[in-house]
């Protein structure tokens, strides 16, 4: 039994079962979906333990030899990403079930499982065209989730999101066509071998393909100038879906880390480090836009959306340096920012449900004001990168590992100013939501309306768990960075990857 295919196969089998067999029974669908997600988390843990030995495992689909067939590759990086996806999915699915979001529209759980299938597949595949296919799987599921439970604004934002991503997919195909025309393969390991052999004077087409691919992944990762779709989409998506989307931007970041390190690495003579030269300024501007957006947001959900943009900028600053040390920092911040964004969206959902609106204005206090303000405070300091949660360590690691003299000033100024703007924005939002509201008189309720009920333990649990995990990530920063260091060493030592996929002895 080969477990590498399991994270793709399990949701792929479960989703149609939920969609067709259990479509009229929400209880059954909930049980199946939660159980499936927990099982996925179990499998992901197993894969993580298996990958931490440092061996790159390969699964040949249909037993076709690479580079002719499609391969799935499990190394430390992909195992870590699948594990992160599974942990996030467990939190999100429990939140969706506890708050009843999954029952506000149809087929939530089926789409949710298809989404997990696409995300896990994108992290595991070792083939560029197969990456495109898994991108489409996760996108088509996300279109459904994005407009889950309907509504005017949500459908409008959903339409924009679909059009944006369809244009991105077309660009992805153009990039793959260009790549195939110039090197004649789409297997990532084989690409790495062939691109390394291309001399700089014949590299025109490959450079075009590399840039096109970067643009495609930048759309997913919400990098300037392609970040504009994100705040409107995340702000109008159902909150649990927005929390799950926290991993979607990281799919783009992962693809850049994987493809632009293994295939188009800075040491390739054909590329001459051009990717980092473009990526770094884009990431700096993204941080600025995120910070300004957080400061200017007049509603809670766009505030959270813009904070995601800012955190993607911080993440990509570290990725753009393309050194093993900076990649270690980037991966640590990636784990942190995924969980932090998810926690923020889950808390925002609890608050908005009680308040009835997500406008940032003083309103009479709702039930459990103290609990929600504490949760929001926790999520806010996580997103802004304040101690004691892991964002602080993540930003410190990033700033510490950027040593290039021409980059260091930009990185420090951008990351620190971005953090300041985020802190001010969140402080203002928090004091408006929870503090000034206590001064508002509580009006008498009109006849027949019921005040929103207090949150039950199960509703608060996922958000609280996400915050606890962030605390744990800070406490266990030592072991985590050890694993991540090994991950980036393995990533930059690409002969390992190539040897495992193409069979030892064939590597060039």
């Amino acid at each position, binding site marked *: 039994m080969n477990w590498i295919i399991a994270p793709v196969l399990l949701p792929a089998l479960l989703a149609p079962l939920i969609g067709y067999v259990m479509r009229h029974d929400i209880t059954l669908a909930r049980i199946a979906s939660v159980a499936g997600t927990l099982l996925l988390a179990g499998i992901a843990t197993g894969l993580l333990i298996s990958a931490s030995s440092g061996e790159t495992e390969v699964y040949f689909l249909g037993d076709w030899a690479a580079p002719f067939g499609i391969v799935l590759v499990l190394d430390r990086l992909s195992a870590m990403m699948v594990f992160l996806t599974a942990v996030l999915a467990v939190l999100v699915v429990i939140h969706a079930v506890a708050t009843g979001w999954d029952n506000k529209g149809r087929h939530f759980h089926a789409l949710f499982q298809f989404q997990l299938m696409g995300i896990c597949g994108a992290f595991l595949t070792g083939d560029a065209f197969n990456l495109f*296919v898994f991108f489409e799987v996760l996108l088509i599921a996300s*279109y459904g989730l994005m407009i889950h439970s309907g509504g005017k604004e949500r459908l409008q934002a959903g339409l924009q999101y679909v059009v944006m991503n*369809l244009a991105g997919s077309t660009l992805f195909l153009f990039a793959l066509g260009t790549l195939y025309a110039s090197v004649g393969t789409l297997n990532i390991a084989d690409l790495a071998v062939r691109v390394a052999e291309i001399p700089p004077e014949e590299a025109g087409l490959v450079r075009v393909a590399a840039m096109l691919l970067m643009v495609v992944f930048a759309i997913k990762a919400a990098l300037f100038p392609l970040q504009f779709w994100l705040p409107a989409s995340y*702000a109008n998506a159902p909150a649990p879906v927005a929390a799950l989307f926290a991993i979607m931007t990281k799919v783009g970041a992962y693809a850049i880390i994987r493809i632009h390190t293994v295939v188009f690495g800075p040491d390739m003579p054909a590329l001459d480090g051009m990717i980092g030269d473009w990526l770094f300024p884009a990431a700096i501007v993204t941080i600025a836009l995120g910070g300004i957006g957080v400061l200017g947001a007049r509603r809670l959900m766009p505030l959270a959306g813009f904070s995601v943009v800012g955190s993607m900028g911080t993440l990509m600053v570290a990725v753009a340096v393309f050194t093993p040390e900076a990649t270690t920092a980037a991966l640590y911040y990636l784990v942190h920012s995924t969980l932090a964004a998810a926690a923020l969206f889950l808390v925002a959902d609890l608050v908005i449900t009680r308040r009835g609106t997500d406008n940032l204005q003083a309103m009479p206090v709702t039930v459990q004001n103290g609990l929600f303000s504490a949760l929001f405070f926790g999520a806010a300091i996580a997103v802004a990168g304040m101690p004691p949660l892991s964002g602080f360590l993540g930003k410190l690691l990033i700033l510490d590992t950027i040593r290039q003299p021409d980059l260091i000033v930009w990185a420090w100024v951008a990351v620190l100013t971005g953090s300041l703007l985020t802190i001010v924005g969140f402080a203002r939002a928090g004091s408006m939501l929870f503090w000034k509201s206590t001064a508002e008189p509580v009006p008498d309720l009109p006849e027949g309306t019921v005040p929103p009920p207090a949150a039950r333990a199960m509703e608060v649990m996922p958000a609280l768990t996400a915050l606890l995990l962030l605390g744990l990530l800070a406490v266990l920063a030592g072991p985590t960075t050890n694993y991540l260091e090994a991950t980036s060493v393995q990533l930059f030592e690409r002969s390992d990857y190539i040897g495992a996929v193409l069979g030892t002895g064939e590597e060039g």
Partner: protein
Amino acid sequence: MEIVIASSIATLTAGGVYLILRLRAFAVILGLALLSYAVNLFIFSSGGLTVDEPPILHGDGIAGYTDPLPQALVLTAIVISFGMTAVLVMVSLGAYLERGNDKLDIHEDEDALSGEPDAQ
């Protein structure tokens, strides 16, 4: 042969981009369809254009064959873009029925980010 394929890809792409920039749902759907036709032709030609040759090796060596991989890729791309177009039509139909117009621009009549009506 090359000039025909290349100019048809260029025409389809130009038309597709122009229609997408109209920012009305119907035009955008047609534009994305044109773009997907263009990219299908592009992928098809990425293995090199050969006339009247089978996509398999046959008999004595590799003298006459056309690269089969782009054909497999383009088949996948066609299926996916077909499905995606169907989803897009359904979503834009839903948005049209909810709002009463098919404009894509979110800030035109309501500011979705601020929740307040836009003065423009």
